């Protein structure tokens, strides 16, 4: 392992620890890691307090109403009409008006400017294509962002409607086939935040997840330059020629591109940096040689209905392929 890669690895490990939630709550509305998610979470606690009080009062009134000793001519306190008008309409009206004002004035819309990073995220059935147009990096199912600054996401769908959702960072934004929805997110703490498609999009909607990896500004710069350098190195290396032949021969190249090689198809996720990918199958399982082997052999068993077909391989081909893919950092 080369020095810069080790640095990234260490950065990632600290990031995971710093998340402060030990693996759990990495996909939680109530554990915000950004000012916007924080504002929404405060809004929730405020509403819970107000509405919870209302609920308790209404139920208490109901119990009192039932339990009261009967009068000769029962009537609501203050007269029926007044009781309904004030208790049922006027007081709720005032509470709802306050909520309306809070709702409109809550600061949850984030924007940045031209200097901020732009990432294109394109939803596919059932994976995420992630492009850094200015950095010339294409990855999938994970989004690396610098900590503490707004990041512009250009969300779009390649097929049906999907929805982008990383609850620790912000609410949802749909990904439509018609047009690009621009959405800004930011993370205040380094860490890994899980996101998931939130609009039903077909058979494998459940396993269309991704991770947002927030790195400190330096680590992020490091990550970017590594990707760019590695992409060039990988192509140059002569020993890879044989592996790549296998890759093309068994059919991987018909769907998956590897930058700088003869594999240019754009149907499945781009595999240029596959070796550094954290998960396989859009959040289905962690990426290592064992899971990768299982995935290549039986993608339909691992993730039924996904668009990757079974591939017939000899053991040598399989080993060659796994070694090749994991080496693509």
């Amino acid at each position, binding site marked *: 392992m080369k020095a810069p890669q080790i640095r990234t690895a260490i950065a990632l490990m600290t990031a995971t620890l710093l998340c402060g939630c030990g693996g759990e709550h990495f996909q939680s*509305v109530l554990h915000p890691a950004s000012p916007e998610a924080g504002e929404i979470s405060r809004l929730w606690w405020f509403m819970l307090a107000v509405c*919870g009080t209302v609920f308790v009062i209404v139920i208490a009134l109901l119990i009192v109403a039932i339990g009261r000793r009967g009068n000769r001519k029962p009537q609501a306190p203050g007269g029926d009409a007044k009781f309904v008008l004030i208790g049922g309409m006027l007081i709720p009206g005032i509470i709802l008006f306050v909520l309306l004002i809070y709702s409109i004035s809550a600061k949850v819309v984030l924007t940045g400017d031209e200097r901020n990073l732009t990432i294109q995220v394109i939803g596919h*059935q059932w994976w995420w294509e992630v492009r850094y147009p200015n950095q010339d990096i294409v990855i999938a199912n994970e989004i690396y962002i610098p900590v503490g600054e707004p990041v512009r996401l250009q969300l779009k769908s390649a097929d049906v409607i999907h929805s982008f959702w990383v609850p620790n960072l912000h609410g949802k934004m749909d990904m439509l086939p018609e047009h690009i929805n621009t959405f800004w997110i930011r993370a205040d703490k380094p860490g890994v935040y899980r996101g998931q498609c939130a609009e*039903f999009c077909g058979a494998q909607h459940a396993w269309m997840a991704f991770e947002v990896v927030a790195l400190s500004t330096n680590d992020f710069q490091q990550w970017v330059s590594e990707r760019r350098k590695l992409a060039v190195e990988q192509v140059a290396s002569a020993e890879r020629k044989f592996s790549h032949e296998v890759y093309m021969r068994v059919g991987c190249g018909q769907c998956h591109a590897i930058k700088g090689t003869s594999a240019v198809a754009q149907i499945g996720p781009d595999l240029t940096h596959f070796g550094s990918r954290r998960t396989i199958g859009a959040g289905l399982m962690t990426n290592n040689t064992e899971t990768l082997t299982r995935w290549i052999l039986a993608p339909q068993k691992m993730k039924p209905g996904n668009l990757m077909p079974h591939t017939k391989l000899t053991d040598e081909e399989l080993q060659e392929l796994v070694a090749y893919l994991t080496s693509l950092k």
Partner: protein
Amino acid sequence: MTTRPLTEFEKTWSPGVSRAARWFAVVNNQPLGKRYMLTAFVFFTIGGVLALLMRVQLTVPENNLIDPHVFNQLFTMHGSTMMFLFAVPFLEGLTLYILPMMIGSRDVAFPRLTAFSYWTYLFGGILFYSSFLFGTVPDAGWFAYTPLSGPRYSGLGVDFWLLGLSLVEIAGITAGVEIVVTILKLRAPGMTISRMPLFVWALLVTGVMILFAFTTLLVATVLLEMDRSIGTRFFDSAAGGNSLLWQHLFWFFGHPEVYIMFLPATGIVSMIVPTFAQRPIAAYTLVAVAMMLIGFLSFGLWVHHMFTTGLPPMAMSFFTAASLMIGIASGAQVFAWIGTLWGAKPIFKTALLFVFGFIFIFVFGGITGVMIAVVPFDLQVHDTYFIVAHFHYVLIGGVVFPVFAGLHYWLPKITGRMLSETLGQWSFWLMFIGFNAAFFPMHIMGFLGMPRRVYTYPKSLGLTEENVIATIGSFVLGIGFLVFAGNWLRSLRRGERASENPWHAHSLEWSTESPPPNFTFGTPPIVTSREPLWTKTEVPAPQNENVLRAQKALSNAPERWRATLATDPLKAEPHAIQYLAGPSYQPFLAALGFLTAFIGVLVKGYLVAALGMIFAAGAIAVWLSPGKRWLQYVASSPASTESGLPVHPNDRRSTAWWAMLCVYAIGITCFGALFFSYFYIRLFSASWPQNGIAVPELQLPLLSYGLLLASAGTFYWATRAFWAGKKKRTQIVLAGSFVLGASFIALEILQFSQLEFSPRTNAYGSLFYVISWTLDLFVLTGLAMIGAMQLRMLNFFENRIGFTGLQMRITAMFWYFTVIAAVAVFAVLYISPRLFA
């Protein structure tokens, strides 16, 4: 049971003579209402089983018991079944059964329409579920978002969904017309608008909402089915269409739909609470106002289902405001119930327990509903299990619990047997506890990152405990339902016989036998207060004579035809004697024709579809032309002279006149939805017409639409001649209208042949053709009506103050509407592209 021979009057009202007739020709509201409810309950059970299967799969994380394809089918069928095949139809069935009794009528306004509504509903449901036989079960969700439900990403299952649903929608719309007209026209004398039971108020608002909401859905489903079958491009973003258009149309129906289920449920509660509190409802006027508020507001909330689609924040905030205002209307109702119970020492029967359960759960669900109207919060919880929890609180708490309250309340009236209180209480507590255990944890699941509609979830989310509890709860809930079913079956055999009014209730349905006779009331009741069974006072002097005369004339009469009293919509003074049709096979045959046509579309056998439509049209034609025999019975009966009331009035005293207003509402919604689609797609298009298509030429349309406009003039002339009694002139001038209308159709066909684009070219082409076709359909229907009018005049011209006059009035109302619609269509299709180009 005594076995005395039936009187002539009883025979007239018997559901059918032969066994076949009792099955397929019955039009009485009671058997059809029962069938409606029973069918809905069968679907409810199936939907419940589907839900339990889903819960089993979700009990533990990363479960592989049910594969994702099947799971998607499960939740699609569960949602669609509960919304379309259970909740609305069940309430319609209950309404058909109870409503006439509650307002003192013998039947609903259009008995054959009841039958038609039931058959289309049943056929729709069967078509829907037949997808299981062919292994192509719908799997795009009950909301069927495009493009996932479009031709490219889904199979035949969605066609089953769309076509089955369209039949159910037709059933719903017809039931809507039925409910509105019955309430407005058939209330007992004296049941003025301020004395209507609140259940009737709720149904009136609901009926009107159905007309607007279901029509919008029908338009949307037809557009999507056309995208799938004949290749139009409404929702295809690659050809100028827009997938969000579907969401707008669907939710413009979908949100009112929630209240279409919820309002009758609150109506049920507003009947039960006063009964067990033994006092009138508190703040009657405000509750009626609240229902009207909900009726309106529900049409202004649809965008709050689309907060995450990237709309401008300003546009969304208006819908937050509107959504929050619903809280006022619901608050008024909840406080009215609490106010009614205040110090009233209510009697704790099962029905009331279910009402308490309802208030608890519904207030909870209402409060989470307020929360999700708040945009920022909704951005987080939208499409998560928080929403699943919320709407099950609102729908099970707000609809199913009141329905069970209503069943415990009204089943003794319907079956004539009391239910067991012990079993009733058991079923309540099982359902209440099971429900909360099943759905409360789902709020937490939503917060901790579990989206809706997932067949499984990763272990690392840490949601196993919540899901285990939810699954256990759902089974307890299911057992609660079973206990109820057992209670009901037990009561049929061993239940104590119910008296006329076992709860000492206040409304009219409790003044007739349990179960009621086929004709419901032998002598039409007269109402003098809001709680007719609690406060009986003398009929006020001025109306006295008229009302009593009408009552006497209809007392166990007329003998050979079915009739009930028609009254004024506001003051409920007797207006007319309403002729009600007897047993008929035509509704069944017409529904069968529709089913054939829809199956034809499904298998892309358009010849079969056309034959089905022709068959249905034939059945409807026979249905609508009254038999000579019945007209003679009416003419020879003394009812009209004895009561001094007409039988077939041709103005707003007629039920048909009010039904035409409903048709106007349906027509306006239909064109409104199409025009909305037209401008919505136009505003998101770079150029209009799209892809450099030229704006259609004006010359030919000017001529064709001009001729159609002229036909309205000739029609007016014809009606003048008709009322003046000039037969020859009427016939000739009316023929002129027919020729003008027919030449419009001919010129339309000529124009279509000259256009450079087809419905498949792009979304513009699709819109242009489909809007034109819709108008053509109206014109063709109008032409058929004019033709029928000509036939009627041949032999029955002299019956101008009777049926012939009514037919003329209805034909005129339809034709004028068509011509006005044509002017609007012309403005949209030919003028608007020339403006702001």
